[in-house]
């Protein structure tokens, strides 16, 4: 009762504010868990860009049981990273983030070349569609499919994955560990800035 196995301390867990957001603009239901800013952004970037694998369990740890219950029986498909990035890191960040949930991943998608989404301006991020393909012949899919990604900004990556699998899966959904703050209405973002800044407010 008095001890926790959380990988973060209480203060960091509070700062890593879970803010689930339902995103419907892609034509299929996508759930984002953390807004891609502040500590969430720092942690995901540190995991992906600096290779700090110790941070991988942190985002999904408090939701692990709930996600395992919700998606038991689903086929979990991770969005692919470029081969160059995987070789450099030595691990797949999506797989590491998903590990606390305990459900197996089925890698059905690959990146056909070393196209780096984050280096592209927002207007050109739809180009990712030409760089993601099926890893091979699809098996018969008789379960709902959940696409999992670490960061969702424009949604082009997940939309491409959905386009490849939509005709084969009886049901499709998406889960992004971090989502762009632009998914939150502008009026709400302004209200947040006026009444609650949160985090560090020093110079």
């Amino acid at each position, binding site marked *: 009762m008095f001890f926790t196995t959380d990988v973060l301390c209480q203060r960091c867990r509070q700062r890593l504010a879970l803010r689930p957001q339902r995103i419907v603009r892609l034509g299929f239901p996508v759930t984002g868990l953390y807004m891609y800013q502040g500590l969430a952004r720092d942690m995901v970037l*540190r995991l992906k*860009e*600096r*290779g*700090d*694998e*110790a941070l991988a369990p942190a985002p999904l740890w408090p939701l692990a049981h709930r996600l395992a219950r919700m998606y038991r029986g689903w086929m979990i498909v991770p969005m692919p990273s470029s081969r160059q990035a995987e070789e450099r890191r*030595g*691990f797949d960040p999506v797989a590491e983030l998903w590990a606390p949930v305990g459900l197996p991943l089925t890698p059905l998608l690959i990146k056909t070349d070393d196209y780096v989404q984050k280096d592209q301006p927002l207007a050109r991020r739809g180009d990712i569609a030409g760089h993601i393909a099926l890893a091979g012949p699809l098996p018969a899919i008789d379960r709902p499919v959940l696409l999992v990604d670490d960061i969702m900004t424009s949604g082009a990556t997940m939309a491409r994955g959905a386009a490849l699998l939509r005709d084969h899966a009886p049901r499709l959904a998406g889960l992004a560990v971090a989502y762009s703050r632009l998914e939150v209405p502008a009026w709400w973002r302004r209200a947040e800035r006026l009444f609650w*800044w949160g985090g560090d*407010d*020093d*110079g």
Partner: protein
Amino acid sequence: MRCPRCGNTDPRWFYHGSQGWYCRKCVAYGNRAAEPDDQMRLVDPEYHLPFELTPAQKQVSDRLAELSRKGRGVLLQAVCGAGKTELVMAAVSAALARGEHVGFAIARRQVVLEIAQRLTQAFSGLTVVAVCQGHTERTAGDIVVCTTHQLFRYPGYFDLLIIDEPDAFPYKDDEVLHGLAAASCRGRTVYLTATPDGQLLEEVRRRRLVRLYLGRRPHGHPLCVPRACYGPPPWLWVRGLAWLTAMTRRRRPVMVFVPSRRLGWIIYLLVKPFTAACHLDSTTAGKDEVIAGFKAGRWRVCVCTSVLERGVTIPGVSVMVVEADHPVYDQAALVQISGRVGRAASQPDGDCLLLCRQRMEKIDACIADITAANAA
């Protein structure tokens, strides 16, 4: 287990990932340590200063060069505006003449660019490279000027490493940055500051560093002693606005230091309808342009956080510190903020007002330090 990059030995900071053990304390610096050119290159280290050193400055400069030649580490404690950068140039020149690698490490990015420019003007025959956020294409040169974070690129490289303002954030109290600095210097280190912290003074006490002191600015005018105003917030608002009104009527540039971004925005929005004002904090885009505009007189009032407490010279400026008793300000910060006043020889006067809700030891100590420096 010991991290070869930052020197960390605390086992809690090591994690076994898919590629083996790594140190989480310095993982933010990645694994991309650049390999600088280590070939010794003899250069012509002649330098030219824009002004002549005073006898006191010359004495300190010569002593520093002698200690550097003998391989001793030095703490150069000089009051704000005393010309610390110019004082080390003789030591830099002598080191370069011996074919040694020289580096300047500074806690603040803006100061890196300013000092790199000054060194370029002084050492016109040499290549001075500024390495900081946004300037990382070139990392090798005759003199390297970098932020303390960028020291990870130079393991065991510098024979003479000059650390400017080691008591400033973020270098202060950051063990990783201390480790990077120690790992990057294979010779001696010179620390430049007006407000040495306890750790540096302890190094002096243990004779690991030699302390040199300079208590006067080149123009010889005394330092501006801050005036503290105590009272409840409504009274402080009245005093502050009255002071601000008087300063703007005299057409003097004014810096208003605030302890938080939120308070900064509030004061900026209050002041802006009445006078040309700008706002600057850590999140401001185009900080360099805002500072240049304020120096050029485009704005009369600059409402800023502690980003401008060091390394900035605005001729004729007066400063006011709102909530000087706030925990974000320590004694060193208050001394540094007061040091913005009277730096230029053409306008050595100015005023410094500290608005405080309560009396605190750090404020009394700041005033006492500056008064003692003037009396010395």
